[in-house]
């Protein structure tokens, strides 16, 4: 699924990128992400900082979805642009964002 096609209530795309979103992984522990995220996954997390983008890029994530309506700082967006990763913000928590994401993706 393209970033522009991913839609559910409370989700806002701040920065679309080309890579297809093929799955999801929900975590706030970067070590966990490094161990388990699969290429093409969208990372669903509350860790809205630059390190998250760095790890997501390393693992080949297609997108990051920041929960709780986190304000995303310019340096995070800049890093995402460089790494060609889509950035979304969801007003929901990780549980309902994950559920809605999976539904939208048709899992």
């Amino acid at each position, binding site marked *: 699924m393209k970033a522009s096609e991913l839609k559910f209530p409370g989700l806002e795309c701040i920065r679309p990128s080309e890579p297809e979103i093929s799955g999801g992984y929900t975590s*706030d*522990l*970067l*070590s966990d992400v490094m161990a388990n995220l699969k290429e093409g996954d969208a990372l669903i997390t*509350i*860790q*809205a900082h630059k390190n998250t983008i760095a790890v997501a890029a390393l693992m080949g994530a297609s997108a990051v979805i920041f929960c709780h309506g*986190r*304000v995303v700082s310019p340096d995070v967006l800049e890093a995402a642009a460089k790494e060609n990763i889509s950035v979304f913000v969801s007003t929901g928590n990780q549980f309902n964002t994950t559920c809605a994401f999976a539904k939208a993706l048709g899992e």
Partner: protein
Amino acid sequence: MSPVQQPEEDISLRIQELAGNLKIRDVMTRHVFAVTRTCTMRDVQTIMKNNAISGIPVVDSNHVVGMVSVHDIMSAFEQDWMADAVADHMTTGVRTLSEEQPLSFAMSAFSKFPYRRFPVVNRKNELVGMVTLRNINVALIQELSRQLATMETEGGRVTPPASSDSCIFYRTYRLARYDFESGGKASAELREQLRVRGVAPKTIRRAAVACYELEINIIAHSHGGTLTLYIDRDCVRITANDFGPGIPDVEQAMTEGYSTANDWIRSQGFGAGMGLPNTKRLSDEFAIQSGVDMGTMIKSIVNLNTSEELSDESK
């Protein structure tokens, strides 16, 4: 004569905490020399000299009508008024403090007015004592020594100040840097204390989370410190005190998502930059003061018996 009514904002949190529940009555000098209007300036000078005091209230049927200071006596010497009645040369419009007022009122009064002493009156407006900065310093140092001594001997158990009659639970916990093992002890005890008293679950949760955030804050971000729980019938007061390094920009620290946590702290599941804003959100009253290289003091008050109980029932 006008009574002093002052807000407490201008006094540091640390001092306020130390002053705790002390009232002016607890620290004032009760043995007071006072004179009547008809005494002479020379009488006053003699009393001052013999008793090494530098200010004497003038009373009329126990009501304070004026003060005579060393300065007034010096003027009297110069002007040759020593045989005159004090009523002619005393300072009028004297500010008094009430014995019922908290000690912090007296501290505010000293920082606001240039006087070195205040007469203290009872409810009937009768003179019952005098309070000087020395009284306050001695009281604070005594309280500090008492707290330190009990902490040393009883491993954190500090008995409440003698004057706090409404206190239900009072305890101080010592927290060391990165000692995540100890984090949560105070909040667990707080939960239990509130639970057995039948406090509404929502209120318990607010107080416990605020307490836990402050515990973790000391452990993750300071060189170590203490956390004090104080429960009375109306509220829970949580005071976190640390020994540094202090917060250079408190406003920034109060911003959601801002954190100075290192990777190790984050790997423990902390450091998302929500602790202080969350504590503030949960508190009915919240105050923070910090000095770089000195430490940080945070006070959080959660009111008990609030409308939360009612709203819980209506759900």
